[in-house]
Each structure stands twice: as structure tokens, then as C-alpha cells.
């Protein structure tokens, strides 16, 4: 079994060796910066990571997430998939009131757009200023994919741009709904 190095652990004294991926140099010594096992190639020390890395985030990528909590002017979203690839860690994004839709931003009511527990499809627009990314759903094909009815706790499917229908009981609720992809059905 090879030894597993943890971040901050000392590997070797730097004697004409170079530091590769997953290591850093401080005071003529080489330390590890990722969790993983050691590989030495032709005077190059690098660490092979032992857990999967997150998929790459670019501006404009499509994100599927779950709504965590809502405020009067913001929605906090937990990110589950980036461009179709599953995310292993906990990443959060923020959806602001002016990015939810294009028309009538002043008369928006958060009750009729998103509620905690919904699964939404959004697009990333900027890396943001503090620990959270900025998202946007201001297009026809972005919005709520699946949701639960508040009273009966059953699954709802989209009915129009504004409403969702509970499958078993026939009751309706208001959300900002994503346009489904009709090409796949044919």
C-alpha cells in the first residue's frame, strides 16, 4: 500500500527537485496541497488526487440545482449538476430578484415563483463577489423542472409558463416553469 499524503504534510527536502501538481514549495521544502498518493518522474514530484475533482465551471454553463431557502429578494440554490456532470462537493449559488424573469420585475412575488425543495434549471452568469456564484433564469427554457405540491406532497408536472399540475389530485400551483424539450418526445 502506498502512503497517502494529506494537505500540509512534508514530503522531502528540496535538493534539485521540482514540484509538480498538488505540491508547493516553502523554505526549501516540498509540502503536499492535495490528498493523494505520491509519484516521482524524472526529478518531478507530484501528487495524484485520490478523490474525483469537480467539473469545470465556465460562464454560461447550464446548472441543475435544488432550492435551499428563499428570502424576499434572493433565492439560495444548492448545485447538483454542471453541464450534465454530477458534482461531488457542496457548492451554492444565488439567484437574485432581477434575474428571475425579464418582464415586470417590480411586481414579482417570491411565493409564486420558487419555493424550498424545487428542482430548477439555471445558467451561471458570473463568479460573484463573495462565496457564492450568481445565477439567472431569465429565459423560456430555464426555471422549475419538478416540484412538490404544498398540501398533498405529491409530484407536479408543468402545465404552462406559470402553472404546475399535481398528478394524482388535479390541483394547481403557481411557479416559474421551464419549457420542456419537445424534440425528445418525437
Amino acid at each position, binding site marked *: 500500500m502506498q502512503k497517502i499524503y494529506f494537505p500540509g504534510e512534508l514530503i522531502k527536502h528540496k535538493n534539485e527537485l521540482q514540484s509538480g501538481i498538488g505540491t508547493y514549495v516553502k523554505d526549501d521544502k516540498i509540502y503536499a496541497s492535495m490528498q493523494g498518493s505520491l509519484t516521482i518522474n524524472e526529478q518531478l514530484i507530484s501528487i495524484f488526487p485520490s478523490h474525483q475533482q469537480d467539473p469545470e465551471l465556465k460562464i454560461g454553463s447550464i446548472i441543475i440545482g435544488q432550492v435551499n*431557502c*428563499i*428570502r*424576499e429578494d434572493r433565492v439560495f440554490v444548492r448545485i447538483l449538476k454542471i453541464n450534465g456532470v454530477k458534482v461531488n462537493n457542496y457548492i451554492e449559488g444565488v439567484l437574485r430578484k432581477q434575474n428571475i424573469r425579464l418582464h415586470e420585475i417590480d411586481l414579482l412575488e*417570491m*411565493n409564486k415563483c420558487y*419555493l*424550498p425543495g424545487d428542482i430548477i434549471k439555471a445558467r451561471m452568469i458570473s463568479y460573484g463577489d463573495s462565496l457564492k456564484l450568481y445565477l439567472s433564469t431569465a429565459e423560456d427554457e430555464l426555471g422549475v423542472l419538478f416540484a412538490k405540491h*404544498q*398540501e*398533498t*406532497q405529491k409530484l407536479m408536472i408543468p402545465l404552462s409558463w406559470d402553472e404546475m399540475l399535481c398528478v*394524482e*389530485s*388535479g*390541483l*394547481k*400551483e403557481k411557479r416559474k416553469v421551464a419549457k420542456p424539450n419537445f424534440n425528445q418526445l418525437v
Partner: protein
Amino acid sequence: MQSALVYITLPGERIPLKSLVIGNTIKTNKQDVNITKSLEIETKHAGWFWIDQQKIAICHNPIYYTPEIEDYVIVQVTGKNSEYYFCDLGNGLIYNLNQMDFEGATKKNKPNIQIGQFLYARVIELNHYLKGKLSCINPQSKKEWTTGENLFRELIGGVIVDLPLNFVQSLLSSQTKPELFKEISKHSSFEVCVGKNGRIWIKGNDAVLIINLLKRCAPLQLEQQLNLINKFASQFQQ
């Protein structure tokens, strides 16, 4: 109020949902009624079953107050923002009151309310995940807040007491003025304000005596209440 089904329930009865739903949306009072996985309504209390276009509930004597739109309540201010006052309704609920929501208020001319003050306000909006909204604007009269004559205002001076909910709501629901206050007004003069969340405010020289009488009157019938007040007729100062 519109008419409802006249039906008395016991706890644990099941009614299928399809026979009750009128339109596209329902709203149930979660303290009275459950909805099971097989889409039936299961009752939790014994009382009169109430169904309306707005909600499904059971009329019994609750301990905690559940708010509805267009209720007049007495609230206490617990915090302040740059835009809102945070008001406490008395059962763990905190609602927002916009600082400009007084009649004739502008940015430079609005009332300055301290923390701990009591107000009389009206419920506008309810929300499960966010805070609800209150307002101090009376739609039926146009008196500005600078005169002290508008209906929804700060309550200055006086004494406030918490009473059982069924007693207070029966005082509010009678069409004519209640006879209890008429009887007290024969002996002394006072000012009263009744909130639907179970709070009463009284101002006057005999305020403490009136409050003790009201506490004793709560479980009694109407004739016994009038007899009790007449016994203490000599104790009033005015």
C-alpha cells in the same frame, strides 16, 4: 361569512378529498386537519367542520391564534430595520410593518415608534416561508396620522392583558356593541381596544379594576357577568 357544511367531527375521521374540492386550489389549516398519502382528509379535533372557498378548518376552542387576512390585532414592536418594523403577534410569529404604511406619511414626515411600543394594526398578507405583512392604513377614512384620531395607531398609556381566545373573539363577533362594556360604562368612563389575537387594552382611572373583572368574567355566562359587575358598583372611582 358564507354558509358551510353543518357537520360535527370527532378526531380521526377520514373524508375523501375529491368530494370536497370546489376549484383548483385548496388551503387547509395544518393544526386542525391532515392530508394522508391516499388523498383523504383526516381530522385532529372535535368540533364543527368548516369548508369555504378559502380554507378547510375545524371550529373549536384553540389555544394558539392562527392569523387570517383582514384581522385587527394588537402587536408589540421588537425590532427595527431601515425599512420595516418587526412586530410580535403573541404566538411566536413575527410580521413586517412598512415604516411608510401610515396615512399621509412621507420620508420626512413619518411616525417614530420605539422598540417595546404596542400598536393596533391590520393583517394584509400571509406567508408560510417568509414573514407576513401588516398595515396601519384604514381604507374607510382618510384621517392622517398626525391627528391622533386614526383607527390604527400607537397605544399610549393604559394597561394590556392576555385573555382566553374564545372570550375575546365572541366580543368581536357580535353585531351590536357588546353588553358587557355597556354595563361597565354606566359606572365609569374608559377607553378600550380589542385585538383578535387575545389582547385587550384599557385606559382610564379604573383600568386595573376593569381588567380584574374581565379575567373573572371569561368562563361565565352573560347574566352571571352582569351580576358580577353590579356587585362591584361601589368600588368604581368615577
